[in-house]
């Protein structure tokens, strides 16, 4: 394995043993590949001027850097502007380890030889890389030997590295593609740790759906920064993709003018839903409920119900589906059946068999604590919210939203990061 730190500032020899300059930086361009080849070396000449030479000319990198040609035959590398400068842009910078799902700092870059080509294979983020940079590698090896402990390198494969710089759109895209392989909650946690310029740039590149999922898990500071930086139409699109209750929470925190503008840009259906939610106090069942839930008319049997769930567009949008609610023509709750019971029941069984006048439920103004208490007491995954006057079913409060008071899911929001926050 060859390390970038061992190459920097080293002499570069030509095939006849002349020194042509010192290594200032190393450039790669196909950063989307698992192992991008070295495209060019930035050479520092004795007078301080810089010259880019082609990576193909490298004969050896370690222990000495030698070229395969005479210095008069050196061909310049013509940059196309999307090269990644390893020293300037990767070494010492923060990157996301998409495999370990964490933010780390690059202590070194690992290069390997394969079929006459030199490839970047990964980055070293471990203590060993640090010691090498400090020139303490031999000392560390000696200590490890004397005291009999193992020095392990922590190397992240290049394909799991998402660099987080945001000034080159092409590379930004590579990073985004790697980031979205992670769970939204992990993305959000990492973005919260990043500086806000970078997290904004990264988030904006995501498509609406992933962006919405990530925002749901992010702190309010990140949500606000991202929304503020987007043009209103896009912001409205993203809000439509978010869970209505999460979107309503976010809008409630924005200033009136902005939230009004965004609401009016949203599709009517979503707008009405969110306006309804906004009308309820934050700590009431209405304030934390979601209006998206799976339901079927009472005259269906099991087969019809299953078919409905499979085919209807509306049911597809319901992200949370543990219960199927049975409603009458007036949208009043007649009964509820768990998905398990539904799947294990005979197909011809009528849903009316599950009818129940007394389903455990709350009203929109029921306090969040009371709601959480009922959910916990009856071991529910979700509890229906019913309008006390019209008896219509308005939505459900899911177990995670209900327990937010006791065990906040968005707990990061409430812990000061650097004491001052």
């Amino acid at each position, binding site marked *: 394995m060859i390390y970038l730190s061992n190459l920097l500032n080293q002499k570069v020899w030509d095939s006849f043993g002349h020194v042509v300059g010192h290594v200032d930086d190393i450039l790669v361009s196909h950063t989307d590949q698992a192992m991008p080849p070295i495209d060019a070396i930035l050479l520092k000449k004795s007078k301080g001027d810089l010259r880019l030479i082609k990576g193909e000319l490298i004969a050896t990198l370690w222990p000495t850097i030698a070229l395969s040609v005479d210095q008069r035959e050196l061909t310049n590398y013509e940059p196309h502007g999307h090269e990644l400068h390893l020293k300037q842009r990767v070494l010492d910078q923060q990157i996301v380890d998409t495999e370990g799902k964490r933010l780390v700092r690059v202590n070194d870059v690992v290069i390997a030889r394969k079929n006459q080509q030199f490839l970047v294979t990964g980055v070293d983020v471990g203590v060993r890389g640090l010691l090498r940079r400090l020139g303490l590698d031999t000392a560390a090896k000696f200590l490890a030997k004397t005291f009999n402990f193992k020095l392990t390198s922590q190397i992240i494969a290049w394909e799991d590295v998402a660099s987080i710089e945001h000034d080159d759109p092409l590379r930004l895209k590579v990073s985004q593609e790697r980031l979205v392989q992670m769970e939204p909650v992990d993305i959000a946690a990492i973005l919260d740790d990043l500086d*806000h310029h970078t997290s904004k740039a990264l988030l904006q590149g995501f498509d609406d759906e992933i962006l919405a999922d990530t925002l749901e898990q992010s702190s309010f500071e990140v949500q606000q920064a991202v929304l503020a930086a987007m043009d209103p139409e896009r912001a409205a699109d993203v809000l439509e993709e978010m869970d209505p209750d999460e979107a309503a929470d976010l809008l409630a925190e924005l200033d009136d003018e902005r939230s009004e503008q965004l609401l009016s840009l949203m599709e009517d259906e979503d707008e009405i839903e969110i306006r309804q939610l906004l009308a309820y106090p934050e700590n009431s069942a209405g304030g934390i409920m979601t209006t998206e839930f799976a339901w079927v008319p009472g005259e269906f049997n099991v087969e019809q119900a299953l078919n409905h769930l499979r085919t209807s567009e509306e049911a597809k949008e319901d992200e949370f589906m543990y219960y199927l609610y049975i409603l009458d023509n007036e949208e009043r709750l007649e009964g509820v059946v768990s998905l398990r019971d539904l799947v294990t029941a005979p197909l011809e069984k009528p849903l009316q068999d599950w009818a129940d006048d007394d389903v455990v439920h709350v009203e929109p103004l029921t306090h969040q604590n009371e709601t959480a208490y009922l959910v916990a007491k009856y071991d529910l995954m979700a509890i229906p919210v019913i309008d006390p006057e019209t008896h219509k079913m308005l939505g459900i409060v899911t177990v995670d939203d209900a327990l937010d008071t006791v065990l906040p899911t968005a707990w990061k929001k409430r*812990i000061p990061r650097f004491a001052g926050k």
Partner: protein
Amino acid sequence: MKDTIKKNRPVWLSKFLFLLSILGPGLITASADNDAPGIATYSVAGATYGYKLIWVILVITIGEVVILEMAARMGAVTGKGTADLIRERFGVKISTLAMLLLIIANLATTIAQFAGVAAAGELFGISRYISVPIAAVVMTFIVLKAEYKYVERVLLVLCLASLSYVVAVFTVKPDWAAIGQALIRPQIELTGDFLVTMLAVIGTTITPWAIYYLQASVADRGVDMKEYKYTRLDVSFGSAWGNVISAFILIVTAATLYVNGVAVNDAKDAAMALQPLAGEASSILFSVGLLGASLLAVSVLPLATTYAFCEAYGFERGLNRKVKEAPVFYGMLIAIMAISSLVVLIPNAPLFQMMILSQTLNAMLLPVLLILVLKLANSREIMGKYTNSKLTNILAIGITLLIVVVTIALFFEPLLNKIF
């Protein structure tokens, strides 16, 4: 419901509330000047040298505003912490040097805070072997577990005790003419003690941790350049305010203790400065102020040090991580608490001297950080069009040179005295 309240607010009130929400990091940072070693340093400076050092406070007020403004501006422009920028710009070696200096300075200052706890306790005859371990354990628990904002408020209230110096100024009737004289005609004594005290006054006002802390909190708040003018106001106002209090501590001790030839060797002596104001209660007042200031700093300093370290080296960090996920973070945090409290428990450790010398050390280590900060704040690549103005550079370089010259003078003081 929320909307109606918002709409009925008069404009001036909204503006005022907006201002308050932005004021903060600068004010907190600068108030922390008057932590336990700060109070000790100004008391000793006033009691030993009268008004002679008051010009230094004036000079470093300007220095503090300039330096903290740079840090805040870097935080706003880059959204990153000081340790991040140093690592990304200067690489592993320089950043290790900076980190080493920060850890030494902060460890010394944390030791000084525990010395403050010990001194406050001993005023009431409570042994340091009781007060310091309790403080260490309780504060470790608070930092790791408690609702930080609530604790911070309680401690800030305790710190209000240092306001008593402001009131005391008007009861002790200092010689304002002499103060004016001392401000206009700066004096330096070429003695080791004087130079040590002078460096301590500088070191307790402009601290490395304040630079790191301020930049990180500005970055964390996501202040952008449109709002930056308020942050600048916050920093300037906070620094000025912190130093006015420092000056008052110095004036009160000078007008009471120096005039009567009382030297300050421990907390009991220092507390006597408040006797004209509070009489018998002066010890209580002094020790409450000292305790509040120490504990406030203990709640922030080790955490800030640990964050900076983990940021620079990319270790996982944050109180929301589990111990297993972030062993370096928790290990270091607890080690700083343990080491610094244990040092104070060394039998007969001189508390006041420890507090002052820690600040002298702080000042001596500062120039390296100042040079790095100056380089960063002047880099076009990092700061874009928000690089330092000429005036900022002149003032910041001036302060750096002053510290370097005084430090050199201190080391060559015996030699210098032979020559002159």
